[in-house]
């Protein structure tokens, strides 16, 4: 009995070690928050255009029925990381032909207009979510966030935070490729 008892700490330590080894898997990100929306139809919403901007407003119907999945990006002019991400998204639109839609989150229209005028406007449509109500529908935890939406309106992928830096871009691009959201070009 005493012998078996003396082995107990070792056995427990080995079990813990096994879990730790599993936990070190480099593809695992403990801070990743899975979205309950994944594989679910996108929520219903209808947003007016940003006041003073020619880009039309956005509703759920605008997200579906395209020839390939589209990207929905939640942004705001007051959000500094969004500014960094803007270049990445513009490149994805211009070089890879993704179709980009935006939700302007809790932003003053005149600020948003100035921001887009300065940096360029890669969005096909932008809905103005003045009070953040639609942000709640989408369950966003901050700005920016990006979603990939299938042609039938299913949410395929969610990215929390700015798509900035090689690692983040590679991850996002992989998700785009998997979803088939990139333009097929004959090269």
């Amino acid at each position, binding site marked *: 009995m005493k012998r078996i008892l*003396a082995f107990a*700490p070792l056995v427990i*330590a080995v079990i813990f*070690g096994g*879990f730790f080894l599993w936990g*070190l898997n480099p593809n695992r990100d*403990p801070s990743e928050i*899975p979205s309950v929306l994944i594989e679910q139809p996108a929520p219903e919403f209808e947003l007016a255009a940003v006041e003073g901007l020619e880009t039309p407003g956005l509703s759920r119907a605008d997200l579906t029925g395209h020839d390939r999945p589209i990207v929905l990006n939640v942004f705001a002019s007051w959000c500094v990381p969004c500014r960094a991400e803007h270049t990445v998204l513009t490149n994805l639109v211009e070089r890879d032909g993704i179709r980009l839609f935006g939700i302007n989150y809790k932003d003053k229209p005149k600020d948003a207009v100035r921001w887009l005028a300065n940096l360029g406007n890669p969005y096909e449509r932008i809905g103005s979510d003045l009070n953040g109500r639609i942000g709640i529908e989408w369950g966003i935890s901050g700005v920016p966030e990006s979603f990939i939406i299938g042609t039938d309106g299913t949410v395929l992928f969610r990215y929390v935070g700015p798509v900035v830096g090689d690692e983040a871009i590679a991850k996002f691009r992989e998700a785009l490729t998997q979803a088939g959201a990139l333009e097929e070009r004959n090269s």
Partner: protein
Amino acid sequence: MTPEFGHFALALALALALVQSVLPILGAARGNLMWMRSARALSVAQLLFVGLAFAALMRAFVVSDFTVLNVAENSHSLKPMLYKVAATWGSHEGSLLLWVLILTAFGAAVSFFGSNIPEPLKARTLSVQAWISVGFLSFMLLTSNPFERLFPPPIDGNDLNPLLQDVGLAMHPPLLYLGYVGFSIVFSFAVAALLEGRIDTAWARWVRPWTLAAWMSLTAGIALGSWWAYYELGWGGWWFWDPVENVSFMPWLLGTALLHSAIVTEKRDAFKSWTILLAILTFSLSLLGTFVVRSGLLTSVHAFAVDPERGLYILMLLALSIGGSLALFAWRAPMMEAGGLFKPVSREAGLLVNNLILAAATGTVLFGTLYPLFLEAVTGDKISVGPPFFNASFIPMMLPLVFVMGLGPYLSWKRADLAGVFQRLRFVAILSVLGVLAIWYMTMGGPVLAYLSILLAIWLFLATLREWALRIRLFDVPFKEALRRARNLPRATHGMTMAHAGLAVAIFGFVGSSAWKSEQVVFVGPGSNIFIAGFDVTFEGVQRLSGPNYFADRGTLVVRRDGEIVTMLYPERRTFPVAQSSTTESAIRSTLAGDLYASIAAPASEDAEESGAWTLRILYEPLVNFIWIGSFMLVLGGGLSLSDRRLRVGAPRRRTIDATTSVPAE
């Protein structure tokens, strides 16, 4: 040039550690005194070289040598000098170097001050300590070189995080590490004793001062971190049950258990294998902390930059050290003969209850901390375990411990008379109940658990003081005689009284500031009035001020009680344009009765500058300062106990093997 010099010093330290990990232990096995004594020079030289490396890194930070990658990433030429120095241990690499510095310092200290320890035990202990050194020095040299160069060097450094520029925070890691890593020497002693196959009362006496020193530093380190969070983060909280806090708390809990079980081993030759196991597990939990913080295993606000490669290397070190020592334990522990016998009511039994509760509490915290990982591995679900779990499980577990703590010192060794003890504690019990009734009358309402905790805290405080008074026969004999008795009492006894009373004081703080805390978060404009805990607070408005490298929005609050102005509070929100971040400077009116704590957060809306509306967080935390006073008493108690003559003189030397007498001294 100095960075390369530092790097080279580290490599030399590794070479010395390799020799030290083999030669002395071999000497102990063969009875070769020369080989055993080599540990002394080796451990001191090892400390010297690691110290040189540390000084080289610190120099790079002080002169802002941005050709060193680590400096470029973690410092900035505009940082105040104190924080440039503190940045030395601010990064993963630098803190690891500090870790190893403390590790080698404890090894050198044992070879220097441990003249009463028999040579074979000392040689084995220092070899085991060198095994740990080899592991961490090689880890540093192979994966985390702090002296990595950067070409071309940047114009200026990267980091100016103003939140971390705080004296408390600069001192927090060294103290915490002193505790964390200090337990390494206790671990080495335990492994050496297992290798030797003999644990006796003398062993426990040699180990105790080192345990005490590590425990004191850890206590101070944890208290300082908690104090920083309270003052700087602007939440008014002092403990968040964050994984990284938990991994520092677990060695403390188990180290406390070790401190007490070592007493039983020392006095009664009992609990031997248990003491050894605690010594191994306490340091294992410190290692686990190092692993969790540096591997990205769990999410935490404190974690260093994460690298799975490094995580794997540390896990390997963990497997070797913890797995190896526990395997050795499984092999050797059953051979240890049981020591002194005792009755179910005795001081031994009291300390056993203390140990069981502390171990169970450690297990609970460990389980709660790692549960998200376990669950994710088994089911794939992601959850986080927060304060509700820990408060509901940990606190009720601690209450019986506090009760037994009051009784413990009254119990005599081997067999105690419980009826007699209760007889002596009758007045203490009555006073505690009266005290809690008085507090209940004053507060009128609060959780039952809070009243129960207060009851037990009063019980512990009074019982501890009464025990001390009984010892010196205060009030029984003339005051002068009592004073003489107090002087003659061993310092360790004073230490225990101080530490136990300190915990009681800290419990007042824990309970008061969580159960009777009032908090209001309101939008305010000039002239707004807030009523909190009997204070009438008027918000006068916000001024824009400029500091050396920031600008501040300073709010002015007039605090009145019964119409009279009590004080003015000036909470600030500082914005650092270069670092692109901001900090909250809370304003606190601190009294023994409680803290009135005000902080202003971001403007209530984006056009606050026009409307003058701000978010004001105002808290009243009763008794919160008792936490720091109590923590200080805990550390002081440890210090008193450490200064006890008994620990310094030690047991007479024993002739263990013939070699000790036949070989002349060098």
